[in-house]
């Protein structure tokens, strides 16, 4: 008989914070600049340079800690983690080991059975990101771009409380939403602003002691995480069943090949020689600061869902989707606040917005149209200034570039023609040109009128109100 195994998983999640400047200097954190243009003596490790903590980093870290029910460390310190690598210009990373800013927290996740469980958070600490190495195959050399060096990160270390890939995804989704709602990061896995390392071990069901764990890196999507967890569980069980033992090591997941390989084992683990960074003074968090951050905490998703249900007459499914991405919820609320009907706003978001996002591979955080312009578009449709197909056409343009729909409709001449005379003339022409359809309609074939409406719309280049065309046709027939 096969033994039954339980998977035990803990996560180390790195989140890049959305500050304008780096953690220890004033350089920009903007993505995509020319290599080494967003650097200074501090983030390139020049001799004599000194770090100064960006207060915004501390505030974000505390805000995330409060939102995940952590104790905030009132006297915290930065430590140096020493290791040599060219992407690390000082050859030490400024991080927190001994007194991290947040400890002993946890978040609730929904389990597969519909229950709720808490995933504990061991600690959250602040640290700096490294630069980026680029290997030039043509020249057989490596180059370093320090633009990313010093970009602020928080590392959220969970307790080994998760038991399945589903729970891991639920936990990550929870973190992503909390952090996104705080505005502390956009949390994009693919772009690396959220990165998760998975610590996994297996043990026979019912045993208390943990098995030997491995750490899996290079997981760039929820899919990759799920596959890596399943693959590693299988690998460890096979080893145990074969009477071999799991080696404590760091493994790199190769998603294309669907397997992992060992990077380094515990034996050659480096001694990082952590010690308090003498260049940075200890961080004291005052009551006042804590109160201020607490007062600024936003309405999180659960509260928002509850409020939407009470305030807006929209389906539960819509609420779930809209609140599932902070930017969508923001657009929704702002547009409704401008006077648009909630259901109509929701329809635009659930329909065209999601469709175009999928089609064009955009994230909610990439959305550029303003609530003002969406409200205008809805108003134009409500007033029958444009019909729904024109509205969709205008929206597609707004989706790419936040244009003013009123101006656009005006400039492109897309207004529905409300000129009775012109409409009558066109309808008469269509009746004259389609005697067969007219005949069919008169003989009781109701469907034939649809063809005639279509012909009229075509002749009017789509700028007519289909209802009015229908009425006019019936009148004249």
């Amino acid at each position, binding site marked *: 008989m096969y033994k039954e195994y339980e998977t035990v998983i803990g996560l180390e999640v790195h989140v890049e914070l959305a500050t304008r400047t780096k953690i220890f200097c004033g350089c920009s954190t903007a993505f995509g600049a020319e290599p080494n243009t967003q650097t200074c*003596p501090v983030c*390139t*490790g*020049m*001799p*004599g*340079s*000194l*770090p*100064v*903590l960006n207060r915004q980093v501390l505030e974000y870290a505390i805000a995330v800690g409060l939102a995940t029910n952590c104790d905030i460390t009132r006297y915290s310190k930065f430590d*140096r983690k*020493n290791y*040599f690598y*060219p992407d690390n*210009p*000082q*050859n*030490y990373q400024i991080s927190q080991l001994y007194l991290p800013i947040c400890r002993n927290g946890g978040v609730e996740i929904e389990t597969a059975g519909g229950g709720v469980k808490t995933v504990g958070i061991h600690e959250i600490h602040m640290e700096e990101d490294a630069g980026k190495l680029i290997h030039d195959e043509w020249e057989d050399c490596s180059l*370093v771009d320090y633009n990313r060096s010093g970009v602020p990160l928080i590392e959220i270390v969970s307790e080994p409380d998760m038991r399945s890939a589903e729970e891991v995804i639920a936990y990550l989704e929870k973190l992503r939403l909390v952090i996104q709602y705080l505005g502390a990061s956009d949390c994009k896995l693919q772009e690396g602003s959220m990165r998760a390392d998975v610590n996994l071990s297996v043990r026979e069901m019912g045993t208390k002691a943990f098995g030997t764990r491995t750490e899996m890196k290079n997981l760039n999507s929820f899919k990759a995480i799920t596959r890596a967890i399943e693959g590693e569980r299988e690998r460890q069980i096979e080893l145990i069943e074969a009477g071999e033992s799991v080696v404590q090591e760091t493994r790199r997941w190769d998603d294309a090949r669907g397997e992992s390989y060992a990077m380094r084992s515990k034996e050659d683990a480096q*001694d990082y*020689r*952590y*010690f308090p960074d*003498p*260049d*940075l*003074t200890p961080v004291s968090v005052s009551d006042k600061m804590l109160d201020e951050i607490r007062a600024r905490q936003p309405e999180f998703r659960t509260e928002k869902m509850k409020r939407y249900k009470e305030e807006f007459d929209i389906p539960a499914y819509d609420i779930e989707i809209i609140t599932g991405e902070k930017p969508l919820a923001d657009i929704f609320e702002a547009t409704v606040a401008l006077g648009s009907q909630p259901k109509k706003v929701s329809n635009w978001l659930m329909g065209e917005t999601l469709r175009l996002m999928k089609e064009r591979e955009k994230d909610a955080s990439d959305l550029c149209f303003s609530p003002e312009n969406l409200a205008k578009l809805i108003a134009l449709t409500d007033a029958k200034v444009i019909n729904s197909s024109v509205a969709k056409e205008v929206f597609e343009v707004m989706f790419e570039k936040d244009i003013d729909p009123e101006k656009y409709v005006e400039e492109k001449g897309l207004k529905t023609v409300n000129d009775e005379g012109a409409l009558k003339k066109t309808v008469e022409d269509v009746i004259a040109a389609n005697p067969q359809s007219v005949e069919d309609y008169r003989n009781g074939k109701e469907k034939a009128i649809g063809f005639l409406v279509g012909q009229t719309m075509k002749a009017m280049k789509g700028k007519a109100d289909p209802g009015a065309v229908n009425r006019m046709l019936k009148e004249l027939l």
Partner: protein
Amino acid sequence: MNMTDMTAVQLSAAIRAGETTAVEATEAVLARIEEEDKKYNCYVTVDREGALARAKEVQAQIEAGDLVGPLAGVPVALKDNLCTQGLLTTCSSKILHNFVPTYTAEAVRNLIRAGAVILGKTNMDEFAMGSTTETSAFGPTKNPRNAEHVPGGSSGGSAAAVAAGECVYAIGSDTGGSIRQPASYCGVVGMKPTYGTVSRYGLIAYGSSLDQIGPLTKDVTDCAAVLEVLASHDEKDSTSVTRDDTDFTSALTEDVEGLRIGVPNDYLGEGLDEEVKTAVLQAAEVLEKKGAMVERFDLSLVEYAIPAYYTIAAAEASSNLERFDGVKYGYRTEEYAGLHNMYKKSRSEGFGEEVKRRIMLGSFVLSSGYYDAYYLKALKVKALIKKAFDEAFAKYDIILGPVAPTTAPKLGESLADPIRMYLGDIYTIAVNLAGLPGISVPCGQDSKGLPIGLQMIGDCFQEKKLIRAAYTYELCQKKR
């Protein structure tokens, strides 16, 4: 007018009075360097053209009335661990033999704003690790008072340049006595201010929690004037302190009436040269005659200062010096196979013996399993030493003693026995561990004619008391 013998304050007064110009002064000092530096090797880099161009610029600003301070137009020498944009900065190490900084240290910027003319960069113990300036990759500096002897260290080039008239004043850095001890050996005035008073931004770090920049000058008046310019709050240095009492020249008064001076018995014990002891006690008497109250007391814990210091400083240094890896700047080995071999060879070839010794020591005390036993314990000793000083300063305004146990040793005597060299720091090191200000003032010479230094230590932020006492003592010496 012999400009190379004038103090900074005298020279700038003469320049402002139109008796001479910044250009003439700079030329005179450059001529002295030309003449003397072959003998003493005070400088790693002399920026002749830069200094003359700068002197012209400063002279114009003085004439226009834009520069009126007491350092305007006065030529200065900078220790070679202070970053100077566009000017070679080596820390007297092969690993930085070609390093030209992209920015200028904040303290140096303060001097430039005050109208200083930078002559060049002075020799030092490699990365400030040493007490004799013999660990420099560019050869030792010799003591201008007697060229067979060392000038002390690590700011030996700066102290010797002041003593030899190869600059009017100089800037050094002090991690465990590196300003005060060479000042003592060369017979000049040197001061280490309270930690946080002078910005460390742009000072290439040795032991970050102990390093402070300070002046080396011909007299106490210059010392106060230079410190007044160096001191500033700097947002770029998290350990920088905001002070509103940096008008140090206001303390240049002849008045020690009622000043309580404590002389620690621990500073007069075993290992102290008799001639040094006599000179220091005589200096205490001079101050007593001027109205100060002098008393002996037990400071305690002095013997623990050296092991605590070498643990903390080496630990910080082992990390601070990691950035010198041959990747971004400085020395890279000629041939290598792969990244790690490049690191190893560049660092093995680029660092000298003493630096390697301290990197190994520092790496050891921080390594897993030893951290608590060494590094944490050293931090506890540091806190206890600070406490011992706090208790002493409840009773005394100033603690007085020798700077070093002996006068300058002969060249080559110290390197063979590093432990003995470390022990030579016994009277200066505790000051850095406690973050206190300390001053070294000449108090005579021994039978060989080598200068002896008197050290006075103040409580945090009490530089003015030190300046007042030192100034009073200096006046008494002149009158003798």
